[in-house]
């Protein structure tokens, strides 16, 4: 029997892994051929419009759907609630109308009689005093380590600061929703925009009174999720219900405003921080009280992750949650980390300023309080060279102004887990040599299909295009949801294991047929080799299977070194600020990121570039703006909710930190970490430029000008 040890190749033996390989479905996506849930148009498909609660809080005094049912073209009307229901946030779903054309569905919505009685609401999560006075604040814990008071007394420098970061939304460009179609055998096909292909069938089946085995979840492509798309959701159930009622397929995607109001957001975080250092710049005390809101539940950032990355010897931390009449939070790329980082690393930077030290040196001196000091130190050195820190850094506010613009540098660092999720693949080698993989996974933009193909092709000595990858269906073997940077490890491990098993089987057949030693065989260049002699081609080897394909299952994760967890990463920003207009320009962002073994360098770098660009948005422009008077989310559209545009990004450097020691760690997820430190790095660069801390992200021109004028933004 061929004895193939489960491991990755020696790094220098790889022909595909670690190279820059374009994604397999790039042309499908770019040419518009890729079909998303929002594009499914099976014959007779009905279109849905929604009626939602227009107030921050309200009681539904009247709901009369009869008018809608009489509208021409309307085929089904659905009530999400009964008359008398109370709503706790604007955008909450009241009713839906499915019709043969979207215009008719709009007519149907207008024909619904609905009356609301406004109830008191509270939407200000930044003002702790107001929330406390309104009875909306709740203690979320406090704990202490060491002796903070003594350390503060002994400190050379003590800094007190206020920092904050507003709520943002996911802004998935494909909204949440599905296309539901009942089949003649009583089963239900759901084209669902989901990060969770294998885990959603039961969520439909339960409420619909159906066996989960009768629900087929399909998601060939998903137009963004960022942590918000794991569930069937009430609107998914409504789509299936209306499809049943109408006897026709129904496509229900949330409209843009509703998407932003109810389909998830990233909670806010604000904090008062006291931080202290000795004369050497070693941080000896941290005392913080943070608050914020994740919606009506009144939670805030986790107590035990503050301060972020660093764990100081003397530390006190306290958390207060605020309940607001806003749509509930959902996991947002690296949940809680960007907020915790923005607070912690801004405070450290201000402390460095007060110490009269270079921020770089203060971060460096305190790396012993982190979990990976060597990695951070190495990454900081690389980053400093790439952004020219030594030449460009100046004490905060002491840079030279040019045409009213001042420039500055800032840095921050982060951490993430990225362990592989559980999953199984089925790998088939056909007697004609063709190869396919089936897996109930999904591609949220990471390049899942490509990662699978690279893994299998590398193992078999084939080309990427030789591996036919099927994902996106719940009938395929179970794969974990794509959240928390778990997918690349979650698919590459099982596929490497399955491919090695299959290769061992083929090697045995080749050994028998050609009288060679199975343990000396290798597969590369579409051939099977014994040492430097070709034994046969890949196709000839596969033909030895006979008439039936070879099927192998691969599972993961396992403790065999193919995958692991835990990364660092540092980021540096070079910005210019117009002191007159408050406008911030990104000159350059540098990300130095470790993530173990990189399967596809091209798509890995894309994750980092994309994260930096999302980071620019939450640092400078994007935020949920709630109107305190009406309780409404007043910029719930893509015009007033400001995303980064193509001209706003400056120069981006994605430097993957990949010494052999990283390769040896195996695959670790990458999606979340590079979005974390961007906010703090940009904030620190702005502070370095201005000599003024703009305490709250996003640093809109108004907040910059307010900070310059010394008023609290």
């Amino acid at each position: 029997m061929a004895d193939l040890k489960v491991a990755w190749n020696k790094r220098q033996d790889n022909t595909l892994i670690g190279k820059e390989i374009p994604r397999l479905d790039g042309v499908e996506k770019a040419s518009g051929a890729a079909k998303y849930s929002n594009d499914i148009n099976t014959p007779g498909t009905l279109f849905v419009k929604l009626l939602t609660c227009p107030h921050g809080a309200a009681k539904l005094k009247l709901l009369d759907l009869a008018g809608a049912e009489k509208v021409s073209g309307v085929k089904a009307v659905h009530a999400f609630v009964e008359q008398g229901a109370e709503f706790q946030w604007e955008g909450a779903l009241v009713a839906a109308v499915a019709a043969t054309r979207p215009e008719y569905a709009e007519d149907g919505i207008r024909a619904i009689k609905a009356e609301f009685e406004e109830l008191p609401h509270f939407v200000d999560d930044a003002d702790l005093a107001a929330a406390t006075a309104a009875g909306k604040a709740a203690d979320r814990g406090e704990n202490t380590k060491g002796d903070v008071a003594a350390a503060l007394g002994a400190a050379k420098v003590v800094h007190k600061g206020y920092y904050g970061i507003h709520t943002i939304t996911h802004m998935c460009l494909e909204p949440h929703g599905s296309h539901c179609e009942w089949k003649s055998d009583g089963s239900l096909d759901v084209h669902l925009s989901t990060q969770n292909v294998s885990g959603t069938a039961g969520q439909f089946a339960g409420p619909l009174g159906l066996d989960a085995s009768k629900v087929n979840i399909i998601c060939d492509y998903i137009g963004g999720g960022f942590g918000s798309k794991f569930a069937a959701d009430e609107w998914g159930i409504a789509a299936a219900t209306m499809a049943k009622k109408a006897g026709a397929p129904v496509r229900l995607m949330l409209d843009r405003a509703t998407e932003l109001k109810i389909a998830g957001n990233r909670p806010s975080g604000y904090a008062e921080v006291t931080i202290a250092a000795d004369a050497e710049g070693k941080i000896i005390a941290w005392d913080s009280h943070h608050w914020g809101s994740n919606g009506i539940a009144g939670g805030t950032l986790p107590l035990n992750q503050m301060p972020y990355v660093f764990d100081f010897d003397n530390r006190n931390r306290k958390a207060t949650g605020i309940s607001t009449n806003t749509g509930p939070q959902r996991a947002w790329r690296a949940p809680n980390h960007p907020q915790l980082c923005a607070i912690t690393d801004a405070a450290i930077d201000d402390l460095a300023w007060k110490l009269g030290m270079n921020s770089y040196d203060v971060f460096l001196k305190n790396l012993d309080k982190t979990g990976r000091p060597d990695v951070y130190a190495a990454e900081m050195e690389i980053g400093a060279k790439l952004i020219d820190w030594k030449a460009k850094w100046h004490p905060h506010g002491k840079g030279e102004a040019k045409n009213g613009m001042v420039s500055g540098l800032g840095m921050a660092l982060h951490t993430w887990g990225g362990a592989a999720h559980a999953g199984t693949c089925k790998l088939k080698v056909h007697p004609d040599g063709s190869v396919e993989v089936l897996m109930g996974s999904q591609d949220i933009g990471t390049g899942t299909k490509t990662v699978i193909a690279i893994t299998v092709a590398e193992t078999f000595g084939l080309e990427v295009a030789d591996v036919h990858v099927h994902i996106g269906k719940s009938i395929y073997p179970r794969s974990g949801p794509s959240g928390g940077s778990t997918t690349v490890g979650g698919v590459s491990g099982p596929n490497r294991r399955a491919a090695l098993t299959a290769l061992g089987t083929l090697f045995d057949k080749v050994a028998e047929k050609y009288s060679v030693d199975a343990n000396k065989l290798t597969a590369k260049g579409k051939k099977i080799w014994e040492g430097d002699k070709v034994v046969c081609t890949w196709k000839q080897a596969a033909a030895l299977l006979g008439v039936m394909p070879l099927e192998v299952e691969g599972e993961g994760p396992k403790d065999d070194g193919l995958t692991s967890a835990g990364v660092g990463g540092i980021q540096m920003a070079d910005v210019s600020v117009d002191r007159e207009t408050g406008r911030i320009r990104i000159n350059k962002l540098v990300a130095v990121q470790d993530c173990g073994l990189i399967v596809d360098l091209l798509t890995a770098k894309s994750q980092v570039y994309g994260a930096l660009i999302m980071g620019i948005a939450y640092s400078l422009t994007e935020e949920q703006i709630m109107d305190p008077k009406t309780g409404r989310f007043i910029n719930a559209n893509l015009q007033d909710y400001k995303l980064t545009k193509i001209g706003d990004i400056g120069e981006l450097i994605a430097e993957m930190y990949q010494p052999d020691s990283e390769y040896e760690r195996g695959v670790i997820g990458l999606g979340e970490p590079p979005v974390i430190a961007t906010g703090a790095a940009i904030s620190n660069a702005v502070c370095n430029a201005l000599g003024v801390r703009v305490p709250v992200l996003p640093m809109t021109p108004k907040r910059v000008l307010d900070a310059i004028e010394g008023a609290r933004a």
Partner: protein
Amino acid sequence: MKPQDPTGKAGFSRRAFLKGSAAAATATAAALGDPAETQAATARANVLAAELQEITLNVNGTDHKVKVEPRSNLMDVLRNDLNLTGCKDVCDTTSCGACTVIIDGKATYACSRFAVECQGTKIRTVESLRNGDQIDPVIAGFSKHDAMQCGFCTPGFVVATRAFLDQNPGASLEDIQKGLGGNLCRCGTYHGITHCALELARKGGA
């Protein structure tokens, strides 16, 4: 608590003026788009139902007869009646560019036009840029530079890039940053898009 401002100095006139006008920022932002386009998008929700009427739309070189209402916008008709779903439905407010098509040579948000007013024009959608294995260099470039992640904004960006390079074959970096500023991406694929467009522009916009 006050932010840390060691200078403590107040700003002067221009800054105060800008700050004072911040309240009007939202209204200003709304006006930044093409007013006519914004009007058309708003109108669509308010126009009352009318009989379906048959119109002819020339899309990708072929005449298509479709039955639409006067209020039907071009994006919905392309997507729902002609099944040309490369044109994506994203923002509802004529602001994101995901539904970009080329009308008589000009990049246009399909959601900003009523279908009936597009009779007699030549409409090109992203589907016209690929014929089996024959693909437009813009599509090939997007793939090569990995100028996409989830891919939902990508076809709109491809069409915008095609139209932009047709009109600006030797575009500079600055031209590209301005010329493609009408499309939005959430995953953050601008780095790859910029490099793709620059490479094509250096080859004369192929």
